[in-house]
Each structure stands twice: as structure tokens, then as C-alpha cells.
């Protein structure tokens, strides 16, 4: 429970006075430690700034390493420097104000024109988020709410347009020649990155600029959009430099006993050193040139202290020539403070190990090694109702037991053999015990990359022997996991709310349908489909013994009716696991599957019947609910496993040898294709080719030829489908969707076909040819990557080369696509992550602005989209 919450955060700049007030130490010594390794007073590791050495005490707050948060110090700069990051803002202000009277270069009329907008601008900001509306204490009547919701986006849009218009006006002030108040001619002002300003060709000193900025009135600043009471522009010039506490720039002691300072400390040392030299030179009355040089050096040191990647400034380097990581670098980018440490959270109560398959557990279970279950804990809140159970747990010496005891007043004690009995006797309602995981606890299971929400699902714990997480094969698809060494993570939800959410919202059985389009993502693959097919095809009959074996695997004890011969039909066995209320008709290829009241009447069950459009899983999920769908998948898997053991399927190389007749027709297809290609070539030569829109003659020829050669493979596909029956096991598995497809069957046993690089035939290499084994501009398809043989027959060295070209291209393409689509996803998610559906079905963003009046136009959940269409 949070006692206080941050409601909003305001960003401002700090005044020199404030810096002095904040500062606990004025840093004057350009050094860190003395010879004994003890911090020097007034040095950069001054003990008033906090402590990093265990054993030392902070001189400001008396805290030790863990309790002292660190304190700021300051460096008094003898000459002002410009804060490099604010240089642009300074330029804007100098340009917008008069050089002699420092008033804004707008006449009274112009000011009157924009003032109303500004008043509105300021007001809008005041009322922006009405946080109180969300506080529990102020429950508002429902009728009042719509008006609030509508008002917010209006204000928001106005604010953004106003500030934009205003900036346009301010930017134009650059061209004003004469001050409307004092009449002074405005000289040309030039800004040179990063921190140099020139007035009429003469360099402006930071103290001149500071004087100028000081004289700009708060009223004029308000016109530019700056609130002078909060941020004064003269604070953009550094007079006193804030020195961060040592805690954020800790030094490390190397093995050799040598101390190594943080980059920031190094940079601060440079600043102090330069500052000191400058002071000495000024006191000694050195010539102006030398002072100016040193001043510029100080400016450089300060610039790189803030941002070591400032454009136009040489990078400050460490002794080892490594560029220093200064303030801006600490915040920026993927490894910066914001994205790496603040948006990325680290957790306790998590575990990680290799995953392996286990089809005997449910899809929403996870097999967990006992070692992990012993280490992960879940809080057990002692109440007067469960105190005896809790005590029982506590007294146990072995798993499952209690590992930690947290008393009512927050005292934590580790349970051990010595204090076990004693603590067990002492517990009372209100205490919290940390209990080891047991069967049935819900944990979150995750595999990276976490591309969609089904990459994190809740599973019930099943403690199993072994050292790997066990995952049901059907549940591996949403995680995109395979079992070749993949590792996955487990997180244990700790609060009761989190456990409830895991159980009722994140549970794997709730995620059977995808949020993408409402199709099943947890479904059967490969062997399971083969098994189901072996069970449900027309010739599948089983003896009583086999039928009993099959059904007992799913815990069904009554047999279906046998036929005349005392045999049991496979479909009847399979029908036993389909809920009675299911009636569907699904078509795939030549197979029509008809199920009436949970009984298969016609057809066999293949992949599309299990997980395709209008499929069993979808139907069971929508009529009988997620639990029934889960049990169906579990049972189907078990049945299929038994049936594959009984009547397994195997393939061998022989399956890929084609009969002579097929070989002959294949040769016909190839020669026909070659002839067609030659026809296109003659047409091209005779300039009779009909041009494709937007294409040159040559390009048209290429495209048409490529298309023609590509078609050869399609023809072969049709031929194969016609001439090879499903008795061929490779073919059968392709047809029912278990493994492989007809396309790769063709490539294996008939012809590999046209290879493609960048979507067209390979073309690069030598002048007019890809390989030197061909004449120039050869029109033989083989010379441009048409492969007439399949993998069984084998490739010759030319084919091999062409194939490698295509393979290299697609491999490169794949790795590039992941980078591009990864960035696309980051952008989409950053743009839309605040959107949620309101109570009224509308979609709102973070500022309550209306994105959609009703989600998706009809308020229907995409998960249930397919279900709703059917009804």
C-alpha cells in the first residue's frame, strides 16, 4: 500500500542561490584522495558529499553507505560559462528581445493580439489532469462524468496548437530591425554551435549575455511561454556548478589496490583544475588573450561535462583514449538510465531453465523441478481460519515448508531447524509466512522475445522430477518455443490481486484464441495431427484391447458400440472426447468433416479441422468455454500419442523416389517451359512483346520470363498431387497438415525450380553472365538459375551455386527484416500503449482524449470476433 503517490512532476531550472543552498560543500581541491586513500576535505570525494566506503560516516547526515543518499556540493566558477544544452533557448531569447532595452520585440498591438491565448494557455495547464477524480475519496455521480471527459481533450488540443502558433511568432522576431520601445537598431545576432554568440561579428562574453537575460522582464517571458517565477533565463548561464554526490559517481578499487575514478569525477577534476588556473592568471594580471583562452577551455570542459557528444566539439577522452561517458550519455539511448534502468525493471521470485516437452500435463500446467519449487515462495497470510494449516506447514522439515516468517510488525526471520518449532507456536493472525511453491499455484511463464501478450501466460505448477521446465507441446506455439535448448522464465505473482489476475485473466486456457484475429494459437501440431488422423480415418478400426488402451489414456471407462466384427471405429473413440453440444461441418480439400452432437458422422480430423476456420477448438471454446477447450486439447494429445504408438507413420527416402511416369511428365513440363521461355525471347527480339505498364522492354521480358519459369514449379505441384496418392506417407503428412508441404515435396523429388535473388533471376557476376561457364547473354534458363533437378537427384555445381545465391539472399533478408520490424513495433507500441477501453466502450488515451467512440466500430473483442461472426 502506498501512503503517498506522486501526482505530477514539474521540470524547472535551478537558480545559483538555490545551488548554494543545496550545496553542502564548496569544492576547491582538484583531487580526490590523499596518499592513505582517505578523501581530501574540499576535494571531489569530500565526505560531506556522502560516502561510498563501507565503514566511513557521512559528515552531513551521519549515515553510512546504505543509509546516506548523498548530498550535492558546488564549484564556484571564476568566469561564467554557458550551459551548452540551453544555448538554443538563449539564442531564441536574445533574438526575441531588444539589445539595448531588453524588451520583447513585439509592439503593444501584437502583444494584445496574442495575450488572450496566453492567458488561456496558462489556465489550461492549471486544470489539466484532475487527479482528484481518480482518488477514492471523491466518488462522483455518474451523470457528471461525461462532461469532464469531453472537456479534457479540447483543452489539450488547444494548448498544443497555441504553443505552436506562438513559437512561430517568436521565431519571426529574428527579422525585426528596430525595437518598438526604445527605437534601437537591432544588430545581426549569430549563434555558432555549441556555445558561441556573435553580435555584429563581435564575440559576446557569457557575462554580457547573462546581463542581457537578467533584464528581460517576467511579463515579456510569459509571452514567449516561459514562467519567470519558476525559470529565469539568466540561470541558463552557469555561475556555480552543482557537483553531484559521490554516490552517483562511485570510484572503484582495482585488484592492484589502485583507485579508479568515475568518468564524471574525471571531468569535474578537469573543470576545477581549469577554473583554478584561470583564477590564478586573473589574480596575477595575465594578458587578456591568455585569460580568454583559459575561459574558452573552461567552457569546453563544462560543455563536455554535460554532453560529450555535443556536435562541433571534440570528444573528451579518458587516458586510455576511450570517450568519457558524461551526463547526457548516462541518460540517453537503449543502455541509458531511462530505457535500461527506469523502464526496465528487475525482479525477485523468478526462475529460469531449459524447457522440454511433456504431453502428459495439461496445456495450462508447467512441470517445475523440485529444486526451483523449493526456492520460489509465495506469501501465506495467516488468518484465524487457516492458522492450523499454516502451523502444519511450518512444522514440516522438508519440502513443502515455510522458508520465512514475517511478523505483523514487519520483522523478517528465516526459518531453520532451530527456530522452527518455536516460531510455529508463536504465529498469530496477521503474520505473513513465505511458503514454497506447491502443485496448483499459478506462475507466469515467459519466453523472450516477448512479441505479443501470449508470450507471457499463467500456468499451474506441477512439481516434477528433473531439472527442466516441462511444457505441453501444444502450448509452445504462442511462445514460439522449441525444445532444442530454449530457456524460459517463471515469475511468481506475490500479491493476492496478482494471483487472481494470473488465474482468471492470464491463464493459458484463456489465451487459446489469439488476440490478433481470434484463431486458435494453442493447438495440435505434427505428431498429434498424425495420431488423430490415424485414429479417425475411414480404415481405422480397433480391437477391444486397443480401444480400451486408447480411451483409458484419457480416463474414459465406457467403450463406444462395436461394429459387427466386434471392432471399434476410430471416429467413435475420438468422438468420446468431443463435448456433446458440438455440431460442425468443416471442409478441407476433399475431406468433409461432419460432427453432430459431439459425434463424428463423416470424414476424418486433420489440421484444419482442429485449428482452422470454424474448427473444433474454436467451436468448443465458444460453446463450451475455455476449460472444455483446454481439456479437449489435452485429451486429443493423449489419444493421439497412444494412436501413433499403435499405428505409427514413418517416411523414408523411398517415398521421395518418383515412378517413371511422373519423371517423364516432369521432363515434359520442363521442356514445355523452356519452349515457352524461348517464345518470349523471340517475341522480345522481334519487339512484339506487350509491355507491362511502367516497364521497359527489357524489364518486361525479364518479368515475363521469371513468371514463366516460376510457373513450372506450380505445374509440377499439380502433377504431383494428381499422381501420388496419400498412401505415400510423406504425401499423407503434407495433406493432413502434420509436417511438410507439397511445395517442398516437389523441390525434393521433382525440380527445385527457378532461384530468385531480389525477386528476379540471378543477374550479377561476370559481364553478361552469372558464371563463366556460359556464353554471354545465354538464353538457356539454366544460366540464370533455373534448376531442373530436385534434391533427391542432386544438384550439379552450377545449380548448387545458383541455389546458394538464393539462399544467401533470403538469409540476409530475414535478419534485416527483424531489425526493421522490431523498430516498427517499438514505434507502434510507444504511440498506442496508453489506449484503453473506457466504461462506455470508447477508446481513450492517457489524457482522456477520445480515440474511438466505440472500440473497433462495434465494441467487439477481436478474440471473440470469429465466434461472434458465426453466431
Amino acid at each position: 500500500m502506498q501512503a503517498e503517490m506522486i501526482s505530477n512532476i514539474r521540470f524547472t531550472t535551478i537558480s545559483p542561490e538555490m545551488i548554494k543552498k543545496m550545496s553542502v560543500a564548496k569544492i576547491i581541491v582538484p583531487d580526490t584522495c590523499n596518499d592513505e586513500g582517505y578523501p581530501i576535505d574540499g576535494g571531489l570525494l569530500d565526505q560531506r558529499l556522502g560516502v561510498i566506503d563501507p565503514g566511513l560516516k557521512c559528515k552531513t547526515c551521519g549515515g553510512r553507505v546504505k543509509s546516506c543518499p548523498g548530498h550535492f556540493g558546488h564549484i564556484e566558477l571564476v568566469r561564467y560559462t554557458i550551459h551548452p544544452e540551453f544555448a538554443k533557448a538563449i539564442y531564441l531569447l536574445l533574438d526575441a528581445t531588444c539589445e539595448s532595452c531588453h524588451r520583447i520585440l513585439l509592439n503593444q498591438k501584437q502583444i494584445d493580439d496574442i495575450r488572450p491565448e496566453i492567458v488561456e494557455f496558462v489556465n489550461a495547464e492549471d486544470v489539466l489532469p484532475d487527479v482528484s477524480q481518480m482518488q477514492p475519496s471523491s466518488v462522483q455521480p455518474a451523470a457528471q462524468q461525461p462532461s469532464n471527459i469531453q472537456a479534457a481533450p479540447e483543452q489539450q488540443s488547444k494548448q498544443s496548437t497555441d504553443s505552436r502558433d506562438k513559437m512561430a511568432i517568436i521565431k519571426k522576431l529574428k527579422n525585426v530591425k528596430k525595437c518598438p520601445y526604445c527605437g534601437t537598431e537591432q544588430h545581426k545576432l549569430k549563434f555558432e554551435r555549441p556555445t558561441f554568440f556573435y553580435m555584429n561579428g563581435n564575440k559576446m562574453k557569457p557575462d554580457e549575455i547573462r546581463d542581457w537575460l537578467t533584464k528581460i522582464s517576467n511579463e515579456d517571458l510569459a509571452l514567449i511561454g516561459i514562467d519567470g517565477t519558476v525559470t529565469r533565463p539568466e540561470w541558463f548561464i552557469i555561475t556555480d556548478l552543482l557537483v553531484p554526490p559521490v554516490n552517483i559517481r562511485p570510484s572503484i578499487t582495482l585488484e592492484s589496490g589502485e583507485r579508479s575514478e568515475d568518468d564524471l569525477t574525471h571531468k569535474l577534476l578537469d573543470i576545477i583544475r581549469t577554473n583554478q588556473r584561470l583564477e590564478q592568471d586573473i589574480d596575477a594580471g595575465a594578458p587578456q588573450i591568455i585569460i580568454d583562452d583559459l575561459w574558452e577551455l573552461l567552457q569546453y570542459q563544462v560543455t563536455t561535462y554535460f554532453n560529450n557528444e555535443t556536435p562541433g566539439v571534440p570528444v573528451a577522452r579518458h587516458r586510455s583514449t576511450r570517450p568519457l561517458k558524461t551526463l547526457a550519455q548516462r541518460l540517453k539511448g537503449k543502455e541509458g538510465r531511462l530505457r535500461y534502468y527506469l523502464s526496465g525493471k528487475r525482479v525477485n521470485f523468478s526462475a529460469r531453465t531449459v524447457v522440454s516437452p511433456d504431453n502428459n500435463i495439461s496445456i495450462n500446467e508447467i512441470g517445475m523441478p523440485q529444486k526451483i519449487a523449493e526456492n520460489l515462495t509465495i506469501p501465506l497470510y495467516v488468518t484465524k481460519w487457516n492458522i492450523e494449516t499454516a502451523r502444519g506447514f511450518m512444522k514440516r522439515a522438508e519440502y513443502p515448508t515455510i522458508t520465512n516468517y514475517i511478523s505483523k510488525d514487519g520483522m523478517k526471520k528465516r526459518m531453520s531447524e532451530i527456530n522452527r518449532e518455536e516460531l510455529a507456536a508463536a504465529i498469530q493472525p496477521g503474520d505473513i509466512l513465505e511458503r514454497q511453491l506447491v502443485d496448483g499455484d499459478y506462475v507466469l511463464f515467459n519466453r523472450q522475445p516477448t512479441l505479443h501478450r501470449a508470450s507471457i501466460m499463467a500456468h499451474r505448477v506441477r512439481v516434477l522430477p528433473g531439472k527442466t521446465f516441462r511444457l505441453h507441446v501444444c502450448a509452445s506455439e504462442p511462445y514460439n518455443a522449441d525444445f532444442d535448448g530454449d530457456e524460459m522464465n517463471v515469475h511468481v505473482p506475490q500479491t493476492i490481486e496478482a494471483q487472481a489476475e494470473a488465474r482468471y485473466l492470464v491463464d493459458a486456457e484463456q489465451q487459446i484464441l489469439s488476440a490478433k484475429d481470434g484463431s486458435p494459437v494453442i493447438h495440435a501440431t505434427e505428431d498429434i495431427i498424425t495420431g488423430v488422423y490415424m485414429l479417425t480415418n475411414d480404415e481405422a478400426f480397433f480391437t477391444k484391447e486397443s480401444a480400451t488402451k486408447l480411451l483409458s489414456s484419457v480416463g474414459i471407462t465406457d467403450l463406444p458400440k462395436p461394429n459387427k466384427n466386434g471392432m471399434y471405429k476410430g471416429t467413435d473413440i475420438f468422438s468420446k472426447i468431443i463435448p456433446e453440444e458440438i455440431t460442425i461441418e468443416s471442409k478441407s480439400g476433399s475431406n468433409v468433416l461432419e460432427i453432430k452432437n459431439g459425434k463424428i458422422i463423416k470424414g476424418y480430423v486433420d489440421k484444419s479441422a482442429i485449428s482452422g476456420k470454424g474448427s473444433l477448438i474454436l467451436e468448443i471454446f465458444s460453446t463450451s468455454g475455455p476449460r472444455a477447450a483446454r481439456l479437449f486439447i489435452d485429451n486429443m494429445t493423449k489419444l493421439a500419442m497412444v494412436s501413433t504408438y499403435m499405428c505409427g507413420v514413418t517416411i523414408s527416402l523411398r517415398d521421395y523416389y518418383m515412378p517413371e511416369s511422373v519423371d517423364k511428365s516432369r521432363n515434359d513440363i520442363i521442356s514445355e517451359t523452356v519452349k515457352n521461355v524461348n517464345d518470349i525471347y523471340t517475341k522480345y527480339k522481334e519487339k512484339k512483346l506487350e509491355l507491362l505498364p511502367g516497364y521497359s522492354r527489357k524489364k518486361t521480358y525479364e518479368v515475363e520470363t521469371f513468371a514463366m519459369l516460376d510457373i513450372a514449379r506450380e505445374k509440377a505441384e499439380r502433377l504431383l498431387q494428381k499422381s501420388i496418392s496419400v498412401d505415400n506417407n510423406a504425401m499423407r503428412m503434407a495433406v493432413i497438415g502434420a509436417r511438410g508441404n507439397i511445395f517442398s515435396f516437389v523441390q525434393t523429388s521433382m525440380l527445385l525450380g527457378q532461384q530468385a535473388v531480389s525477386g528476379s533471376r540471378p543477374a550479377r557476376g561476370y559481364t553478361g553472365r552469372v558464371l563463366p561457364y556460359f556464353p554471354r547473354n545465354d538464353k538457356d534458363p539454366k544460366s540464370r538459375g533455373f534448376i531442373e533437378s530436385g534434391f533427391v537427384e542432386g544438384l550439379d555445381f552450377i545449380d548448387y551455386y545458383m541455389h546458394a545465391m538464393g539462399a544467401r539472399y533470403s538469409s540476409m533478408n530475414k535478419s534485416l527484416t527483424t531489425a526493421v520490424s522490431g523498430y516498427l513495433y517499438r514505434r507502434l507500441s510507444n504511440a498506442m500503449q496508453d489506449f484503453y477501453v473506457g466504461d462506455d466502450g470508447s477508446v481513450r488515451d492517457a489524457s482522456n482524449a477520445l480515440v474511438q467512440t466505440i472500440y473497433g466500430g462495434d465494441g467487439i473483442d477481436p478474440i471473440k470476433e470469429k465466434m461472434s461472426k458465426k453466431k
Partner: protein
Amino acid sequence: MSENKNNFRVAPGEAVGTIAAQSIGEPGTQMVLKAFHQAGVKSNLTVVGLPRIIELVDARKSPKEPLMRIWPQKSDLKKFEKVVELKRKLEEVKLRDVLEKSEENFKNASMSITLKKEKLENYSLTEREVYSRLSKLEGVEISNENHIITIKITKLRGVERSIRDMRVRFINIRNMAISGIEGIGKVTIDQTEDGSFYLVATSNNISGIIDIDGIDKDRIYCNDPFEVMRVFGIEAARNTILRELDDTIRTNGITVSVRHSGMVADTMTFYGNIKSIGRHGVIGSKNSVFARAAYEETVKHFINACVFGETDPLSGVAENILIGKQINVGTGVVRLGIKKEELKKISAKSSKKE
């Protein structure tokens, strides 16, 4: 049925934005990176795959491959001749498309051209038509002798008659449209499955063709959201983005619910103009300083926030994760409320028990 319908409703609080982003981002890896033209398909030459999605989401001012589908009015849908006539009306033919040869004479600032008969026939134009079109030009004298048309420049914008100026003028004349609508480019005829004809133009110029007779004004389709916005307004542009996204995803063989592409389209358009999904668009105009800084250009956002004394209202997801507060989507939007009087009753009750 009506009872069932409520079962399909999306739950209040559902983080539909994130779901949409994931639904489009997750299959992104399966899409083609480079745009090829579908071999053998003669029409609908559009950029496909990831580049097209990025083009849409970036809100680029003009698409790489603009396209318009123009339908004839309903009565002419199946009449091929009418459609051909319409095509002639629209298709842009430049002077240089029908030239046999052209000679430039800088001495007397003239250019003589001969027209190629076959090419004229191709576009069903006559020499006379070309001549009359040319005679409407300003600042030139035109004469026709023996099928040689001579164009003499009488007035040049510059004071000097430099050869450069003359060349520019001649090139402009050769690039002039002598028939059709300027900027419309090539137009091809296509046919739907049910036999209706329509025209496909590789340009994005709705305003140029919308007033032409014989066109079904309600059915003009353009793949450029900006052009659609200029002519039909923001809602139409929203639908264009939705449709283009959906088509692109579908041609990659991926099924994604339209709700998700619709969410992206609405994100880009609900401000009233088309904003890109990126640092210069939707993300760059977020209310929260932290959300912007965590995305890109971290330092810039913090510095500007300091200069203008901005306040982060901490209402979005990113900033609440950053500071460690509960986020405002999903189950996080649910708040419990209790009236103070009720609270007193409860505490009275519980104290009585004890």
C-alpha cells in the same frame, strides 16, 4: 442472440492500443522486406510488405507508388468503349510521347517538330488536335508546313535570350500535356471478376479528375491518405490508411483483425490531421515529458521541459512504469471508491464485533 452479443464485447480497461501494436508488430517479421512486383500480375502495382506499412505509418507526404482506381459511372460499368473513351479523356499524353523528331534552332529561337503517325494513332489523336493545343501556348508563334510544326519563341521571361533559357522552354514544351489531365500519368484499364471495367492511374491527383464527366465520384479510390484528406477530409483519410494497412497485411498472407489496423489509423488521425507514428508525430506530441524522453531524443525533451517549466501529469503507461506507480490500463484503471459515511458505518460495525 442479443444476450450473446454482450459476451463478445471487449472488456472495459482492455489495453487495446498495446494489443493492436503487438498484433501488427508480431507478424512483421514474416512480411517481405523488399517490395517486388507480383510477377504475372499486370495491374495493381503497389509497394507491398513492410516498406509499405512503414510508409503509411511514417505519414510520408507522397507514396512511392501512387495509385488511383477510377470507376466509370454506374451505367457504363460494363461498356468497354465508354471506358476506353474515359481513358482517352484522362490519360496524360505529353508532346514528346508523339514526337518523331525535334530540332532546336537557337539562332532564331525556334524548334521544329515532326509527329509520328503511329504514336498519334495509339492515343487516337490527330495532328490538328496537337496543333490547336500548341497554338494556345503563350509567347510563341506557331506555323505548320508539310507536317513540320515550327514553334518560335517570341517572348522569353529573361531579358537575355540565353541558350539555357531557350532550352528550358523547349524542354517544357516537349513535356507539355497535349491531351488528358496533367499529372495523371499512364492510365490502364482493368476488369473485376464480375466483368466491370475500371481505370488504374499511377498518380495521386483526385482533385484533378473529380470533376470529369462519366466518373463515379463516390467510388474514386486513392492510396495516398494525404490526397484523400485534401479532397474528402480526415475521416476518409482514416479509412484510406485502414484499408491500405489491411490490404498490405493481407497480401502478405497474414490475418490480422481490422480492429488493429483501425486502431493504428485512428491513432494517426484522431488529432484532426494525419500524424506520423514516431518522434515527430504522435509520440512527439505526447503530454508526458518522461514518455517522450524514454522514446527518443532524451536530452532534448528534458531541456525543453526545463526551459518552459513543463509539468508531467503522469497519466500514461511509460511514465508510471518509470516512477513505479500502477499503470492506468487494464485492471489498473479500476478504482475502488467508498463514501466517507459508509466507511464510518463499517468501522463502527467492526469495532462492535471486537
